[in-house]
């Protein structure tokens, strides 16, 4: 009846401009590709190629490794901030919240550029390391820089996930544990931490999936030497014009992200989306 009618414009829009293109991409990824020309066909050679060629496989594994590391670190350093924002009684809370949300208002490009300023061979971080006597360290055009940048970019997502989880745990639970003789650390470790595990898992899963398709940060801080699945999709699409291979990589990234988010959603009984 009428309600369905209201949904129609948005649905048709997405079908035409999102779902059909996705299906086309899926189809292209099994087409044949010879000398820069795409031929209709049905072959898994692009998938097989990507997953067996050591150059590409290496990119995939390194990206997964990167995603895992960034996911873990954002949760670890996001937790204290989330805890402060939910439980803290400081009058700086509002300010800290603004600080945490602020990066979400700036483009990834802008934030990553900030890291470029900091991490450059002659940048502030190296200057600081110099003073401490740790000498100049190469922090850009390699995975280290990309890693630092990505942690910064996705930290807010983890913080928000953990905050959401933390705010469902009543503070009295921790007090009850203390009242039963647990120290503050034990009360936190035995009560609050397990109860906020869902938030941490969500934060990790979101970050993991987002890193797989992160383009700007690897490109800016990694230069042309660091390759990730996302930069590969772009390069195959626009420099090498190998659309079938680009499609295959995209499908692989899509599948991995969906599986991670789906498993997390199932475990938690709710939808996990960015």
């Amino acid at each position, binding site marked *: 009846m009428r309600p369905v009618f*209201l949904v129609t414009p948005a649905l048709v829009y997405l079908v035409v401009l999102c779902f059909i293109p996705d299906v086309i991409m899926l189809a292209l990824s099994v087409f044949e590709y010879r000398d820069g020309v795409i031929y209709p066909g049905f072959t898994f050679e692009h998938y097989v190629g990507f997953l067996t060629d050591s150059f590409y496989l290496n990119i995939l594994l390194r990206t997964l490794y990167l995603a895992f590391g960034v996911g873990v670190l954002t949760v670890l350093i996001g937790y204290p901030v989330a805890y402060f924002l939910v439980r803290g009684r400081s009058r700086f809370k509002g300010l800290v919240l603004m600080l945490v949300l602020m990066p979400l208002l700036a483009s990834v490009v802008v*934030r990553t550029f900030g890291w470029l300023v900091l991490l450059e061979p002659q940048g502030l971080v190296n200057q600081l390391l110099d003073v401490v006597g740790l000498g100049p360290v190469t922090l850009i055009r390699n995975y280290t820089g990309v890693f630092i940048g990505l942690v910064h970019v996705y930290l807010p997502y983890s913080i928000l996930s953990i905050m959401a989880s933390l705010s469902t745990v009543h503070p009295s639970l921790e007090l009850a544990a203390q009242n039963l003789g647990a120290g503050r650390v034990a009360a936190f470790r035995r009560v609050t931490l397990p109860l906020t595990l869902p938030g941490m898992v969500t934060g990790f899963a979101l970050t993991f999936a987002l890193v797989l398709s992160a383009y700007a940060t690897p490109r800016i801080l990694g230069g042309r030497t660091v390759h990730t699945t996302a930069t590969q999709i772009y390069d195959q699409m626009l420099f090498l014009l190998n659309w079938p291979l680009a499609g295959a990589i995209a499908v692989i990234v899509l599948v991995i992200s969906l599986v991670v988010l789906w498993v997390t959603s199932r475990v938690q009984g709710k939808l996990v989306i960015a």
Partner: protein
Amino acid sequence: MTVAAEHRRIRVAGYVSPTRAWLERSLLTILYRVALGLILTFIAAPIVVVFIASVNETQYLRFPPAGFSTRWWEAALTERWMGPTWLSLRLAAVTAVMSSILGTLAALGIYRGSFRGRDALLAALLSPLILPQIVTGAAMLQFFALIGLRDVLGFPALLLGHIVITLPYAIRTVMVSLHGLDRRLEWAAQDLGANPVQTFVRVTLPLIKNGVFAGAVFAFIVSFNDVPISLFLGRPGNIPIPIAILGHVESRFDPAVAAVAVVTIAIVLALIAIAERFARVSEFIYQQER
């Protein structure tokens, strides 16, 4: 009771001196605060340095800063940078309006509907949030190319693509507002003689205004800052500002970019400040988590 008599009481860990208790406490607190301070510095640092770098005398930012200069701003406020900024601004504005219209209608339909497959439909409408955006961008480029619409690349394609990824935000914020809307208010309006259109304009819309506004603001910000879609759908001389910056910093280090970055941040902040005057937009940041 006899059982109780045999039962040995287990006591809590026991007595520690006040000094030790105080030390334990302070140590914990200090550790926590130091960690917090370091993390917050980490969060703030790259944005702060962008501001400083934009007015720093020398090309490379060193400590202490070399001196004040407006030369990067002079470079930034030229057609080379303001062209893409203006394009992004228009793009984000149109995206926000279109997404809000499509999204508000869709959210109303889903919320009101009692048809089968409603949950699946909602999931489909929100799916652009789950699909990796770089995949969406690449797929759209292939799509436009294959159906022979390479000509739309540039503003039209960017607009079409940005609506795809911002639509879910609009739908979700409006859904949140609708959850908070008492159905009986619309009943009351109809009972008093308002037809469906009058009910929507006079009662429903004013009451979900915050959600619609918030959705539009989110859509604007997402569009204005977007990389993965814009990466594929622009064309030379017709690219949005994040892609312009990306292309530039890939090849060289130029503090003019810092000034441009400050301009983009200022635009977003100004937008939020303006929007906040019309509706409580900020409260939706939390409600997004659901």
